[in-house]
């Protein structure tokens, strides 16, 4: 990793030198040979060894690298023609000047591509932001690769020495400013439009009706993997991840007495520099989203938490399903819990079977349709539906559904859909109770369950065990 970064930068530096000192016809063969080795191996090897559990996609990585390769070849061709022409018609300055912007743009695109490729890899190393400048990666790579540093979500400004390294012209300064604003887009592949795009973006920021004027905040964009990373704070010693820095500090106590000092345990003070820094706002990495800075009516997100929640809610699969209604899905556990608090409990039912989330909606419905009645939640009718049976059997009949329910659960566990079956069982509960005929219920129960209904001995208390047995048999078969 370290090596590759060095190579990249050296290469760029070299390219830039060629470009501006174009009178020096450097043989490009050497560079050409140099490219293949660093294009694929580091990316193939290091992720698999360092972070086997991370979810980066080798295929896209390969695509990106081939693209970069292609690009470099193009640039090389251009420069070769320049070199060639320079050799033939000793200094056609005008032609050079013409081609120079094209080369610049190409190189810009290349750098962007490289950084974004590397950037998508870095967060998967669970310790750094792709937004941290390559120079930082270049210098502190050991830290980055090792599980030492915490997440640095904000962009770092381009260090001076790096600029010197690159001898960057104004175009590049602009480009890096774009980085610091989090302007890097994987989607941008068109060669020449990057700079224009940047301008347009600035214009967008100017247009959008933010409460903050566009220049007054620093716009950051986290990468997808970074947003989805489960932990943001990592132990520098054992690598364990934490969601909160306080938890990390608590954890650190276990690594030695030096972490137990009040100073080490105290909440780190806010940077003095942070106070006069710009307010930070965040952009969603998903293109086309209103929270993405390319959107016409872009509205930035206020905090990292907002980014996380927004990204999960809007752009991730909803993997949490409500266990009550089995229809509502959520991508955030907290949302699911909030929903489950209300799901089912305040269901307002009509006699026609329609259910409403609000009582006034139910009453409007009942008022509208002739003969529809508000229906009570199922528990209460259950207790009062056995009214038609004898009062003496009241006690038994109320006990029965419970035991039946449990035995049914047992039996149905071999089936594929517990919930539905149970529902069906509840549905026939009333009928069963009104007949107050346990034997008949038993028969109707067996087939509905899918069991080959073993004739029960008529004794009701036997039923659960029998069903259990049959379930076991089924399992053995």
């Amino acid at each position, binding site marked *: 990793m370290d090596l590759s970064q060095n190579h990249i930068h050296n290469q760029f530096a070299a390219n830039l030198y060629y470009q501006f000192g174009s009178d020096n016809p450097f043989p490009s063969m050497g560079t050409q040979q140099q490219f293949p080795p660093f294009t694929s191996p580091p990316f193939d090897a290091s992720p698999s060894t360092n972070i086997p559990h991370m979810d980066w996609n080798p295929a896209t990585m390969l695509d990106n690298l081939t693209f970069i390769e292609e690009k470099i070849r193009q640039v090389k061709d251009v420069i070769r023609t320049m070199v060639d022409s320079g050799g033939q018609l000793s200094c056609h300055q005008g032609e050079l000047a013409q081609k120079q912007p094209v080369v610049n743009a190409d190189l810009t695109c290349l750098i962007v591509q490289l950084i974004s490729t590397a950037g998508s890899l870095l967060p998967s190393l669970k310790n750094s932001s792709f937004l941290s400048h390559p120079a930082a990666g270049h210098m502190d790579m050991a830290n980055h690769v090792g599980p030492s540093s915490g997440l640095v979500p904000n962009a770092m400004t381009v260090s001076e020495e790096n600029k010197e390294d690159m001898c960057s012209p104004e175009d590049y300064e602009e480009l890096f400013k774009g980085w610091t604003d989090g302007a890097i887009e994987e989607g941008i592949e068109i060669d020449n439009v990057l700079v224009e795009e940047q301008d347009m973006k600035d214009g967008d920021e100017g247009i959008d009706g933010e409460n903050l004027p566009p220049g007054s905040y620093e716009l950051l964009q986290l990468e997808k993997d970074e947003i989805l990373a489960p932990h943001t704070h990592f132990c520098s010693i054992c690598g364990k991840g934490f969601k909160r820095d306080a938890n990390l500090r608590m954890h650190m106590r276990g690594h030695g007495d030096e972490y137990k000092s009040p100073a080490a345990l105290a909440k780190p003070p806010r940077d003095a520099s942070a106070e006069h820094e710009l307010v930070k706002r965040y952009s969603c990495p998903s293109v086309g989203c209103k929270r993405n800075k390319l959107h016409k009516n872009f509205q930035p997100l206020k905090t990292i938490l907002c980014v996380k929640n927004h990204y999960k809610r809007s752009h991730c699969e909803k993997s949490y399903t409500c266990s009550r209604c089995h229809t509502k899905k959520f991508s955030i556990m907290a949302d699911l819990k909030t929903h489950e608090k209300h799901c089912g409990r305040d269901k307002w039912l009509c006699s026609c079977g329609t259910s409403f989330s609000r009582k006034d909606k139910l*009453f409007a419905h009942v008022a509208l349709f002739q003969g529809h009645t508000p229906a*009570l939640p199922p528990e209460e009718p259950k207790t009062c539906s056995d*009214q038609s049976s004898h009062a003496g059997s009241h006690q038994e009949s109320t006990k029965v559904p419970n035991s039946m329910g449990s035995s049914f659960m047992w039996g149905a566990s071999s089936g594929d859909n517990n919930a539905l079956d149970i529902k069906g069982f509840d549905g026939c509960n009333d009928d069963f109770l009104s007949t107050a005929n346990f034997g008949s219920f038993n028969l109707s129960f067996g087939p509905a369950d899918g069991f080959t209904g073993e004739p029960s001995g008529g004794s009701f208390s036997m039923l659960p065990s029998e069903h259990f047995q049959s379930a076991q048999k089924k399992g053995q078969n």
Partner: protein
Amino acid sequence: MAAAASHQQQHRHPKRRRLALSLSLSLSLSLSFSPSPAPAAAPPLDTLADELLFLVLDRVAQADPRALKSFALASRACHAAESRHRRTLRPLRADLLPAALARYPCATHLDLSLCARVPDAALASALVSGPSSCPSALRAVDLSRSRGFGAAGVAALAPSCPGLADLDLSNGVDLGDAAAAEVARAKGLRRLSLARWKPLTDMGVGCVAVGCAELRELSLKWCLGVSDLGIQLLALKCRKLTRLDLSYTMITKDSFPAITKLPNLQQLTLVGCIGIDDDALGSLDKECSKSLQVLDMSQCQNITDVGVSSMLKSVPNLLELDLSYCCPVTPSMVRSLQKIPKLRTLKLEGCKFMTDGLKAIGTSCVSLRELSLSKCSGVTDTELSFAVSRLKNLLKLDITCCRNITDVSLAALTSSFTSLISLRMESCSRVSSGALQLIGKHCSHLEELDLTDSDLDDEGLKALARCSELLGLKIGICLKISDEGLTHIGRSCPKLRDIDLYRCGGLSDDGIIQIAQGCPMLESINLSYCTEITDRSLISLSKCAKLNTLEIRGCPRVSSIGLSK
């Protein structure tokens, strides 16, 4: 109900009626006084048609309720006839219910008010397993004083009594939506009381509203869980409601207009509805309820005279209005009463009268028959005199605790209202005994008189002796009266039913004996703290057959001998 049934029969058979009359006398005599009749008595009974026999039994029961029992014991036929005749059941214990219902299959009224505890099982077994062949004929069930039953018990009622029309489930403090849902299955209900069903919510009311579309009378008093949603639905579904009691519910202006727009609503009770405010009253359309006759808004604390004024335009046909403990009475509010020209009864108890408020009543409400000003502050002699001089139709007047009025008002009052039927002036302490004599002299039609805690003396009582129609007389804490005065009452007021002699220290046994002898219709007498009373009074009172209430607190000379009589 039994009386109604017999009336119908009488209409159908006008000729038989006379026959029955003559028969009934002889039969009732012979049957009621011969517990073991001769076998010869059976054939004539068999030949009688059931209707005739029932007429006979009606009269027998009227004369002496116990006679029916001996009639039933006479023979098998008599027993069967009596079983078919009986309409009202009032069992003492719930466990007697199945037997009672089996014995009297034709009973239409079941009054369980004597059974404090009616478990679900009793209701269910009585109504379901009893006469299972034919559904019960019960039309009215009163469970208002019973506890111990739940939704399951209520659920037993509806399917087994298809004709159920009158159901009183008041005081079912533990009953809630589930029970209401079961009540809703009695589709034919006309009258229903769910008072004090504390767990009841809109859901239950909604069930009742949809299920019992025939409801005429409904009480939801003290159903604190009921809110606008349920009441709105009720107003929408039960269009035939004539009487509605929503006292102490949480009704607000959201459902108040809907309720008043019920086309047949005649009587609306809104006692203590704190959700009703001026906004709600003002939200009514003009003349939106032409059917409403009785409106009780007493103790609605959040309404003012402005709201009342704005509301009166909506109820042009109102006959009775109760604004007790509501709002100060201002002249402008009273003048708006002119919009309800038919107003007969106005109750303004505990209201604060602003200047000229009472005068305005005199000018605006000429048709008033009944006026209650009890416990009002600001009632003065001049205003009351002016008002009574204008209210020519007044029959009942209540000026209890109007402490500022003196002989002047009483003179004006007695001279204007010679036809007064009821006068209540408890604790009008500034009226002298001389003025009280005027009452007796002028108002000889009085039926009800309350002079508790006044300056009444024997002369006044003597004057009251002219009121021969007197039914109720309250002269408690009148320390000046003695046996002599009471003797006048005893001689000349034979219709007296209710007399209150609380703390009349000057009375002794002689006066009470005079009352007991002169007033055979006496039903209720209060002798508390009449310290001179002895067993002799009680012995004499034992002659009053209809006496049902006797209060003798603080009578140290009464012994168990007197009580045993």
